[in-house]
């Protein structure tokens, strides 16, 4: 029993964080917002970092890592508000294809040459379908129809299309995508707290930074509690799915629930701390706030995941109690 990341995992995370801090700035977000939302340079940079092949086995051109590493990186992508379909392609489609033995396009994914969009009945939309080389729908990769119907997201950097006849109800696809949405929500929550703290340090009223007032401090501290206690839930969920634990879907729902609640709370508190500035399009906060709103509903909203937990906990599907924290019955026994 050792609930820590390895030094290699920390190094990987830090290098991705550093790269995104340097390249994927709020200035870039504003530029993307004005000029079509996607920039091949951003995608190419992520591919050069090795992220497209993170979960692709080494003999197929990838790095052969697991969902714990992917979750760590997805937090960083959320922290930077990355909008390229790297998570959907590399952290959801790739492990799904590998798990199902559909390996023929994994090399293309690892090389950054194939973007995969994800279709599932749980969402009325498909993200980044218009730029995808393939769509994962009904248990297989399919070609993308020529001109998908565009839908308008509150998040200015999301590109959504109507799902149409695509979709299906694949449980592993849902679990992978919900897990990675949770990770991005955690990253967004962390960033919104950091933005709030920065603002509270700079903004002065009554002759002092507003962050010196207890009312503001306590807002920020409450967010920190919520976010910090969502993180271990996320890590355990990633570990459980990676290792085929029977409870993994429950843990993933728990992670999505905790991450959603943390991110929405962080967003509402952040706008309060920013005051009227937070209600403008001019400060950076809105990008993360809107991403949080979008991901809160994506891949099963709060009610959906609460119900999955509820069915297991109150319905009696799992053993409860202090000795059951790391119960790890296998799915594929």
């Amino acid at each position, binding site marked *: *029993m050792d*609930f*820590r990341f390895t030094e290699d995992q920390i190094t990987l995370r830090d290098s991705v964080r550093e790269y995104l801090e340097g390249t994927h700035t709020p200035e870039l977000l504003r530029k993307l917002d004005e000029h079509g939302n996607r920039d091949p340079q951003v995608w190419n940079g992520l591919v050069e970092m090795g992220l497209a092949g993170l979960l692709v086995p080494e003999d197929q051109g990838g790095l052969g890592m697991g969902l714990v590493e992917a979750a760590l990186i997805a937090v960083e992508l959320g922290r930077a508000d990355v909008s390229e379909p790297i998570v959907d392609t590399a952290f959801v489609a790739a492990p799904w294809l590998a798990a199902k033995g559909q390996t023929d396009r994994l090399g293309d994914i690892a090389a950054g040459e194939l973007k995969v969009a994800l279709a599932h009945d749980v969402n009325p939309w498909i993200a980044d379908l218009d730029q995808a080389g393939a769509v994962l729908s009904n248990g297989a990769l399919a070609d993308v129809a020529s001109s998908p119907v565009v839908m308008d997201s509150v998040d200015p950097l999301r590109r959504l299309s109507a799902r149409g006849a695509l979709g299906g109800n694949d449980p592993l696809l849902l679990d992978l995508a919900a897990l990675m949405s949770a990770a991005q929500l955690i990253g967004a929550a962390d960033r919104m707290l950091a933005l709030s703290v920065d603002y509270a340090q700079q903004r002065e009223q009554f002759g002092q930074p507003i962050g010196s007032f207890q009312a503001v401090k*306590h807002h920020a*501290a409450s967010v*920190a509690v919520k976010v*910090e206690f969502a993180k271990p839930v996320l890590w355990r969920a990633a570990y459980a799915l990676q290792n085929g634990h029977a409870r993994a879907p429950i843990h993933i729902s728990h992670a999505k629930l905790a991450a959603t609640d943390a991110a929405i709370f962080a967003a509402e508190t952040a706008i309060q701390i920013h005051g009227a500035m937070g209600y403008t399009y001019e400060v950076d906060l809105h990008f993360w706030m809107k991403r949080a709103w979008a991901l809160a509903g994506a891949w099963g909203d709060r009610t959906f995941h609460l119900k999955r937990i509820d069915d297991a906990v*109150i319905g009696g599907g799992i053993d409860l109690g*202090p000795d*059951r924290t790391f119960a790890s019955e296998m799915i594929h026994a």
Partner: protein
Amino acid sequence: MDLNYTPEQIAFRAEVRAWMEANVPKTPLKTLEGREGYDQHVEWERTLASGNWGMVTWPEAYGGRNLDLIRWLIFEEEYYRAKAPLRANQNGIFLLGPTIMEYGTDEQKARFLTPMAKGEIMWAQAWSEPNAGSDMAAIRSRAVRDGDHYVISGQKTWSSRAAFADWCFGLFRTDQDSKRHKGLSFILLPLNSPGVTVRPIRQLHGETGFAEIFFDEVRVPVENRIAGEGEGWNVAMATAGFERGLMLRSPARFQATAKRLVELYRQHAATASPAAREAVTQAWADAEAYALNTYMVASTIQAGGHIGAEASLNKIFWSELDRAMHRVSMSLLGAAAELRTNADGSLNEWLEGYIFSLSGPIYAGSNEIQRNIIAERLLGLPR
């Protein structure tokens, strides 16, 4: 990351489980907050000590088992799984014990730790004063040096179970010209010393679980001071860190409550509201999150890391979780919630638990203070 127990850890769990099943009292003890129940709980401390289960993380030399933190968590899980009684000696085990191990002399360790581990001496805290609560640096109780003794005068309050305990430990001002954090010393003394008066205070539930302590020129040998004269504040901060950090409230306690809460919900499912159902599910999820976080912290500490201000995150989380869980139990019980005893004459533990849970956000440093600590030390907001 390896979230599997080793075969040795699994065998250890089985060992604890077997002992608990054989030794945990079959009928619940009376409340720890009253004299009769307190004595029953002291008896239980001695039973634990007889099995060498009193202070499992302590070195073997002082009656412990020298267990690492993961095994401590396993021990706690089995402890609460077996519905074992609350710890009458928690002030000693979790607060004073670690403090003496870190700051005490070899002689003090020998003198105080072994009787503590055997359950022979029960400890009370003596921190707060009428005008020094959240602002603990405002302490005024004096310890004036007189040869190889201190002469202590003043008043302490909110001292949990001081009406029943044998000794107390706390902070006293040894430098009478000092202000605030400076000039305080950490001193231990018997509560039956001449000049000590303990006045029990009735708590919300009606029992005298805490007390005021009056000191009227109480003579205490200098060797009862832990660490140097005037270094008491730093010692006390370390002690407070143990309290709100890892040891005081193990996750097993809340996971056990969450499990009972689910069972309570099932009994009342026909009349419960959807909101109550959601709160029960949330309670289970949050207790689980607290356990996971604790395993992460324990793993980090075990690998040589440490926690500082992060302990404040913990304290807020468990105290608000405990209150939320008991709040929903009250709503599930409906009109029966107000009854002190159940139909079979046993204590309504949900009501007792709810009342007790209201103290959680206050003791061990109020949650307002914890939020200040988080904002200033973790987030970097200005003081």
